[in-house]
């Protein structure tokens, strides 16, 4: 039995790296600083240790050869999920390049809301340490921050900062969804201001807020239940803050063209920066989403919804969506990669299916090939990106499970196909 301290988590997205973890054989317990996201993710038990072909346990080598044989004559396979560490993504992209596959990160429909805004007009964003040390006003748009990251307030707001005398004085404002708990109430008892509306109404609310910020006259007295007076107060606070931060969770903006809301927020942040400092902060990037977009970014030029079918990477944030491709009968094989979350199941399909995923999956329909792999940060070292997309954390190996890494498996499949293509 051993105890490992300062363990970084690839699960929560905020790069928590102060976990203390007890390892007893293959059993893992989070002893200190766990939360409702990290603790179950770390403690998830290994049940499968053997690869399977059509439900039958086989050697890793047999599974790899069979996977390669399934892929050999495909014309248009899709690699979905794409939830793994940096080396796993490197292997995944090498395989995709070899077989002419689509690469599609499972959470891309959410990431797309941010990426479309970025690619149309850009943004001014910040990272966690800047928030911790500078943020005097946090405007949370349409997100339940503590539901997203249970320790966010504790770790980044309610403790010492370099440039704020009393961090309890920070202004916290919710616009849209109201918080699910009281984490946003400061240690001195200062509660967040909450201006509630349904998230579907945020486009109007945010548009009016930006208009007020720019000094436009608004005739209405309220918008979607929020008074113009209240919105004016928010606008004034953004202008008065030394370092305001506006945060949103693309995943919580569940309505068509939510990218326009992200864009309005981002443009509003730019407006505020005409006179004072203010930054945007998108919440997202759990379980390898940012990692997928980063590695795909430097390998192809594009975020992680790319097709290699033509021999070179093509990016289309809509056409290459896995479910669309499956529903339209466009693809002819599915490879599902998710080394982090055994509860994330591949989409249902009758196509040849290869699953390279965390041990302990429960399938409604057993895939043709299932290869359980180690989890980055538990079974092997690796790198994963934090939600702010700047900091890559160094993941530790906590135990010897004998499970292969995602990269080893995908590289081995690629190697078999490469040798066959040369012969």
């Amino acid at each position, binding site marked *: 039995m051993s105890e490992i301290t*300062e363990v*970084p988590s690839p699960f929560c997205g905020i*790069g928590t*790296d*102060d976990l203390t973890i007890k390892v007893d054989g293959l059993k893992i317990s989070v002893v200190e600083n766990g939360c409702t996201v990290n603790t179950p993710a770390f403690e998830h038990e290994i049940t499968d240790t053997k690869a399977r072909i059509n439900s039958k346990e086989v050697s890793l080598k047999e599974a790899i050869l069979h996977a390669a044989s399934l892929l050999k004559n495909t014309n248009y396979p899709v690699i979905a999920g794409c939830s793994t560490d*940096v080396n796993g993504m*490197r292997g995944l992209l*090498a395989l995709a*390049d*070899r077989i002419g596959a689509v690469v599609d990160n499972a959470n891309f429909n959410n990431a797309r809301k941010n*990426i479309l805004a*970025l*690619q149309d*007009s*850009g*943004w*001014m*964003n*910040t*990272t*966690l*340490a*800047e928030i*911790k*040390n*500078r943020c005097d006003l946090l405007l949370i748009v349409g997100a339940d921050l503590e539901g997203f990251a249970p320790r966010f307030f504790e*770790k980044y707001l309610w403790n*010492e*900062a*370099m*440039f704020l005398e009393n961090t309890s004085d920070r202004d916290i404002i919710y616009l849209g969804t109201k918080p699910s708990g009281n984490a946003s109430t400061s240690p001195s008892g200062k509660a967040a201001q909450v201006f509630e509306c349904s998230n579907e109404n945020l486009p109007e609310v945010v548009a009016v807020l930006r208009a007020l910020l720019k000094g436009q006259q608004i005739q209405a007295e309220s918008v979607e239940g929020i008074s113009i007076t209240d919105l004016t107060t928010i606008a004034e606070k953004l202008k008065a803050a030394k*370092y305001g931060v506006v945060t949103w969770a693309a995943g919580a903006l569940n309505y068509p063209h939510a990218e326009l809301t992200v864009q309005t927020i981002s443009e509003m942040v730019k407006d505020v*920066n005409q006179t*004072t*400092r203010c*930054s945007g902060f998108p919440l997202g990037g759990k379980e390898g989403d940012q990692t997928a977009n*980063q590695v795909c*970014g*430097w*390998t*192809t*030029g*594009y*975020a992680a919804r790319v097709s*290699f079918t*033509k*021999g*070179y*990477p093509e*990016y289309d944030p809509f056409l290459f969506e896995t479910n669309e491709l499956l529903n339209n009968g466009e693809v002819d094989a599915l490879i599902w990669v998710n080394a982090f979350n055994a509860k994330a199941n591949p989409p249902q399909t009758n196509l040849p299916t290869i699953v390279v995923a965390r041990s302990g999956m429960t399938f409604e329909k057993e895939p043709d090939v299932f290869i359980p792999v180690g989890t980055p940060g538990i079974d092997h*070292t690796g*790198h994963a990106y934090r939600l702010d*997309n*700047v*900091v*890559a*954390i*160094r993941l530790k190996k906590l135990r010897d499970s004998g499970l292969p890494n995602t*990269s080893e498996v995908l590289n081995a499949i690629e190697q078999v196909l490469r040798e066959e*293509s040369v012969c």
Partner: protein
Amino acid sequence: MLIKLTGGTVYDPASGVDGKQQDIYVQDGKIINKPTSEFLVDKEYDLKGKVVMSGAIDMHTHIGGGKGNIARTLLPEDHRNDPVASTHICRSGCGHAAPSTFITGYRYAEMGYTAGFEPAVLPINARQAHMEMGDIPILDKGGYVMLGSDDYLLRLLTAKKDQKAINDYVAWTMNAAKAIGVKVVNPGGINAFKFNQRKLDLDEQNSHYGVTPREILRVLATAVKEIGVSHPLHVHGCNLGVPGNMETTLDTIQGIGGLPMHLTHIQFHSYGTEGDFKFSSGAAKIAEAINKNKNITIDVGQILFGQTVTASGDNMRQHANHKFASPAKWVTMDIECDAGCGVVPFKYKDQNFVNALQWAIGLETFLLVEDPWRIFLTTDHPNGAPFTSYPHLIRLLMDRTFRNDVLSTIHPEAQKMTTLASIEREYTLQEIAIMTRAGAAKLIGLQNRGGLSAGNWADITIYTDNVDRQKMFEKPDYVFKDGELVVVDGKVVHTKWGTTHVVKPDYDKSIEKDLKTYFDKYLTMKVDNFKMSDDEITEDGRGSLTVHELKAVA
């Protein structure tokens, strides 16, 4: 395997060889003397009439790190114009302004380059820089770690810590970020922008810390010298792009008091305020100062006309220039009490007065600085132009007629504001070899690279001599990397992985106590998780580290 390169005309400034016909022998990746006993040549290349140089080294090119990946994500439309398909040897990707990592490696190699150095590695983003560079095939690489706007350093300065404390912190950071040099970008300015300061002159105080850029430059240049790092402090100065900034640059040169200092992309810092448009060339005065001050080295940061993207740590200046974004989209970031970045797409136009004069200012600088060992050929890729434009730039430097032909097509008012037409100098092949090979290796402190004498690694580029220097330099006949033939006729025929060049200066281990307290109190990562370990670069079996010796410190 013994390779013989027979009869080529060799330009090897590192050993004083200037266009002499000689044979080169390569064994086990390195250049060797002609064996004295009997020997069998496994492979011979007849290079009669060919030009032989060592592999070129780009000492300042943004090839790894977060801002580059922001630039990539920002510009799908640029990639779509330059898709690159996979082959049985090469991976697919994209090219032009913000090329993908694999294509970066191939295209550099296809121009005869065998090494590139990322000049702006944020300590907190060092992993990303090295991971991206880890996916650049063929090239050797390395990084200069960015300091000067990090709150830790500014706190040391405010607390009046002595130079030794600064030295220890700089050395510690170089180890943590796996760097071979130290860079400062808009000294203290990135930090000041977080306090809503919109400009920071050389003697202007940071509103929170009271520290000036001049002080930051002095302590960092001293630290780099005192810990024995070969590469002088790499300086992106104050006031980038501001008309009149030549005075700041001259003052920066004077103010460093003889300490070694490298001023990067100096073209962007050489502007006067004369003329109808209040924008003029300061190149002559800057060149004069460089010629006089032997402690100063520069790279130019030449601009060339066309679409590109500017990616910089200098978010203060990038924000100020966002209105010039073309296409109209841009990103800035404040980063982790460490630094920042700004990404602004840019289209340099020959019929735009300012752009046209920027082009001329860069060329004036190249031609007026006398010592090719102290000036380096860069476009600050991709900020002035993508690196793929180097052969064109070399032609501009080596061919006066061609240069003047292009000059006659740019904005007429810019033509009037430049002395370029009257400058007769044409760079020689040996001077090109100095700027892009021997000089660069010497400046960075690379041992056994950048030369063709025995003991050097066999990074060798062979060209067919051609009066059209652009054609000559864009398509080498052969490129060898560590003795392996990687390019034939300007196309990659084989790939391999280069090494990562670093230095590992010593430091007083006791400083980690204060760093741990600081990290625990203010940052979002444990200090031990912040430091990169060697195996992060080597564990995938492709990467390797080459640790270079430090200079003996008096």
